[in-house]
C-alpha cells in the first residue's frame, strides 16, 4: 500500500459526502483541513517543574512514544508551540513566569494541566503553592494523577486533539476569582467558618442578608453560565 493506492482511492470511502470520482477528487473546507493538520502535528512545550516532568519524559521516550500522536516535536520556546504541558507544582514564585510564557505562545494555543499539583495544588495545601494553574491561565484539559501514568497523558493529548477538531479552546482562567483570596486561614476551615460568621453578623447589623444569599432582584435573567473550573 503506497501513496499511489491512496491516490487510487483505496482508503477513501467512495460513498462519503465530498468524495467524487471514486476518490480521485475530494472536496472539503479549508477549516477542516487546517484543523486536521493542527491536531495531527501538535508542537508541545513542556513546562516541567517537578515529578510530573519525569513521567513526561517517560511519555516522550521509547516505550510510550508520543510520536504516534504526532506530538513528538517538543519546543522549548513558547513562540514555536501550540500546546503547553504544565507538568508539576507551580508555586507562587513561579507563577509570573508561567503567565509570561503562556502569553508568549501564539494563538491558537491549548494548555494541558498534568497532575494534581498543576490542577489543584494537590496535597500541598501550603503557603507557597498555587492551588491550581487555572488561577492565572486557562486550562483545556486536566489530567489527574500524582503523577499521571503515561497512558492517562496519552488520553489527555487525545482529548486535546478532540478539542482542536471541534474548535474549542478555554479562553479565561477558570478560577481567576480565587487568586489573591489567600488571606489568613484560607485552608483552615475553622478559621474560615469564623470569618464567615463574623461577616454575616456585620451584614446582619446593617440589615443585609449574608453574602451568597441572592435576593430575587439580584438574579438577573440573562446571567451568564458560571464556569465549571
Amino acid at each position: 500500500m503506497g501513496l499511489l493506492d491512496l491516490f487510487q482511492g483505496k482508503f477513501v470511502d467512495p460513498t462519503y459526502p465530498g468524495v467524487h470520482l471514486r476518490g480521485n477528487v475530494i472536496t472539503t473546507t479549508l477549516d477542516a483541513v487546517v484543523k486536521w493538520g493542527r491536531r495531527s502535528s501538535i508542537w508541545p512545550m513542556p513546562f516541567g517543574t517537578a515529578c510530573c516532568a519525569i513521567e513526561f519524559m517517560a511519555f516522550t521516550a521509547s516505550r510510550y512514544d508520543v510520536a504516534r500522536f504526532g506530538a513528538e516535536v517538543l519546543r522549548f520556546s513558547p513562540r514555536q508551540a501550540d500546546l503547553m504541558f504544565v507538568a508539576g507544582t507551580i508555586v507562587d514564585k513561579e507563577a509570573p513566569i508561567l503567565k509570561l510564557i503562556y502569553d508568549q505562545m501564539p494563538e491558537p494555543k491549548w494548555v494541558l494541566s498534568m497532575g494534581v499539583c498543576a490542577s489543584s495544588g494537590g496535597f500541598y495545601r501550603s503557603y507557597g503553592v498555587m492551588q491550581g494553574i487555572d488561577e492565572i491561565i486557562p486550562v483545556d484539559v486536566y489530567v489527574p494523577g500524582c503523577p499521571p501514568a503515561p497512558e492517562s497523558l496519552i488520553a489527555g493529548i487525545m482529548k486535546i486533539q478532540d478539542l482542536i477538531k471541534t474548535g474549542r479552546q478555554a479562553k479565561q482562567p477558570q478560577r481567576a476569582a480565587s487568586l489573591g483570596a489567600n488571606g489568613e486561614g484560607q485552608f483552615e476551615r475553622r478559621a474560615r467558618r469564623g470569618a464567615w460568621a463574623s461577616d454575616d453578623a456585620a451584614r446582619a447589623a446593617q440589615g443585609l442578608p449574608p453574602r451568597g444569599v441572592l435576593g430575587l432582584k439580584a438574579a438577573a435573567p440573562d446571567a451568564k453560565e458560571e464556569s465549571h473550573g
Partner: protein
Amino acid sequence: MASATAMAIAPEVLARPAVRLLQEALGERLRAASDFRGDLAITVDRRAWVDAVRLLRDHPELAFEMFLDLCAADYLDVEGRPERFEVVLHLYSVSKKHHLRLKTPVPESDPRLATISHLFKGANWFEREAWDLYGVVFEGHPNLSRLLTHDAFVGHPLRKDYPQGQRHVLKSPKQMLLNVPAGSEHLLVNIGPSHPAMHGTFRVQALLDGETIVDGEAELGYMHRNFEKMAENRTYWQVIPYTDRLNYCSSFMNGHGWALAVEKLLGVPAPPRAEAVRVILSEFSRIMDHIVCIATNVVDLGAITPFFVMFRAREAVYDLLEACCGARLTVSYVRIGGLAQDVPEDFAARCQQALASCREAWQAGHELLTRNIIFCKRFRDVGVLSREDALSWGWAGSCLRGSGVAYDVRKDHPYSGYEQYDFDVPVGTLGDCYDRYLVRMEEISQSLRIVEQALAKLPGGPVITDDKRVALPPKAEVYSNIEALMNHFKLVYEGILPPPGEVYGYTEAANGELGYYIVSDGSKNPWRVKVRPPCYNNYQAFPQMIKGAMLADAVAIIGGLNVIAGELDR
C-alpha cells in the same frame, strides 16, 4: 522536650573528645551535651558559636571538615525553653568518621547570630534559608536575602505562628540577580527558570565577556512547596508520600531514609526481609537516578540517542516497582518498621529482568559515550572542583566522590545490612565533569552487584515489624479479633508516638547523603523536620564553578551535578 539550659552533662558524654575539647576551650559557654540514639549533640552559648565551629573544624583530633547542614527550629511556648529559636548545625569528619550536632539558642527579642559562612562555604545558603524561613539574622553574612520564598512574601513561614495556608501573590519575578555596573560592556544572560538546560526550575544569571562567564549568580525557590511545614502537620507515616516527591528520580530511596530515621528515633528495627527488599529497590532507584542524570545531561549537549537507549532500563525498573506497590514513580512503598506489603511471588524473576535491562543500558551508555570524542571534549577538564572545596561546600555522593573523597554512607556507616554486601566505592582523580560521569557509571555497575547479592540471599519472614506501637496488625486479624481491631484503631487514631528527642538519620541517596533531622516532642506529629538535601550543597557551588568557564560548559556542569528541584527547594 528536655530543657536546653542547666543540664548536667553525663560523664560518659563528657569523655567524648568533642565535648572535652569544647569544654576546655569554652568553659561556661558550653551549655549542654547529650547522646541520644548515638547522636552526639552539644549546645553552646551563642557568643561562643563561631569559636566552637572553628575549633571543631580545625582541631586535628576532631577535624570536622565536612559541612552537612544548618537549620533553625522554632520552640514557641515550649516549657523549659526561654529562648524561642535554636540554630542547629550538623558536621561530619571524613577522616575520623564521626558526626556532630552543634546547637545554640537564639532569643526572639534579639534573633541574631554570627555567621559561619566564612568558615564553611556551604553555610551561605543555609543561613539565608534560616533567615528566610525563621527570621534569624546572621550577622556578617554577605547577602542575607530571601532564598526560597519570593520578594513579595511577608513574614517567616516556618515559624510556628505562621498559618500554613497563607499565601502572598508575586506579580513579577526579580529582574536582576547580579549587579551590573553602569557602562559595563559585558552581556548579561538570564538562563531559566524555564529553560531546557535547567532541568526544571533553576535560574542562573551569567555575565558574559564574549563567551566566557565573568560572574554568575543562581536563584532557587521556584519549586519550594514546603515539605517541612507540611510534615509538621502530618503523622510520621503521612510524611512518607511527601518524601517520595523530594528526589523524584529515585523516590524509593527518600522513603527508605525517612523510615530509617524514624526507626532510629523509635528504636524499632525493621525485619531482615524488609531491609533486603529495601536495599534491592534502593539500588535499582539509584540506577534509575544515575540514568536520568547521565541521559539528560548529554541531551543538553546534543546527544539524544543515549536518552532513548538508557531510558528503556528505567521502564524495566518502573515495571518492577509497579509490581511491588502499584505505582511507577511515587511509590510510597516503605512503612515505618518495614514495607507496606510483601513483594510479589515472581519478584526474583522480575528483578532478573530489570537487571538484564539495566546491564544492557549500562553497556550501551559506555559504548555511546565513554570514548566518544565530542563527549570527552565537552566533559574533560570542565567544572573542576578540588577535594577541599568539595568538603567545604558540603558536597556529597557521586559529585564528592568524583572529587576524590571516598565517602559513602553505605560503606562508612552501613545501614539496612549494607555491610553484608561486597561492593566498591569508585572515586575520581581530578574532580571534573568526566570524573563525575565515570563515577556514576561505575556506581551503576556496583549497584547491579549489590542487587545480585541481595537477591541471592533474600531472607524469608515478615516484611514489617510486629511492634504494636508502630505497625498496623494484619487485616485478617483486624476483622476477626477485637484486640487487633482496637490496636488498629488506636494506631490510626493516635499515630505513632515516638519518645521526645531528636535524631539525624542519614542514608546514601542517589545524590549523596540524604539526612533527616527530626525533632519529636512525643506527640504524633513531628515538631520539626529538616531535610538535608544533597543537591542543595552541590548546586550552591555552581555559580562559583562557572566563573571563568564558557557558557556552554555551564550547561555541561549543571547536568552533571544532578540538581533535582523537588529535593533542592523541598
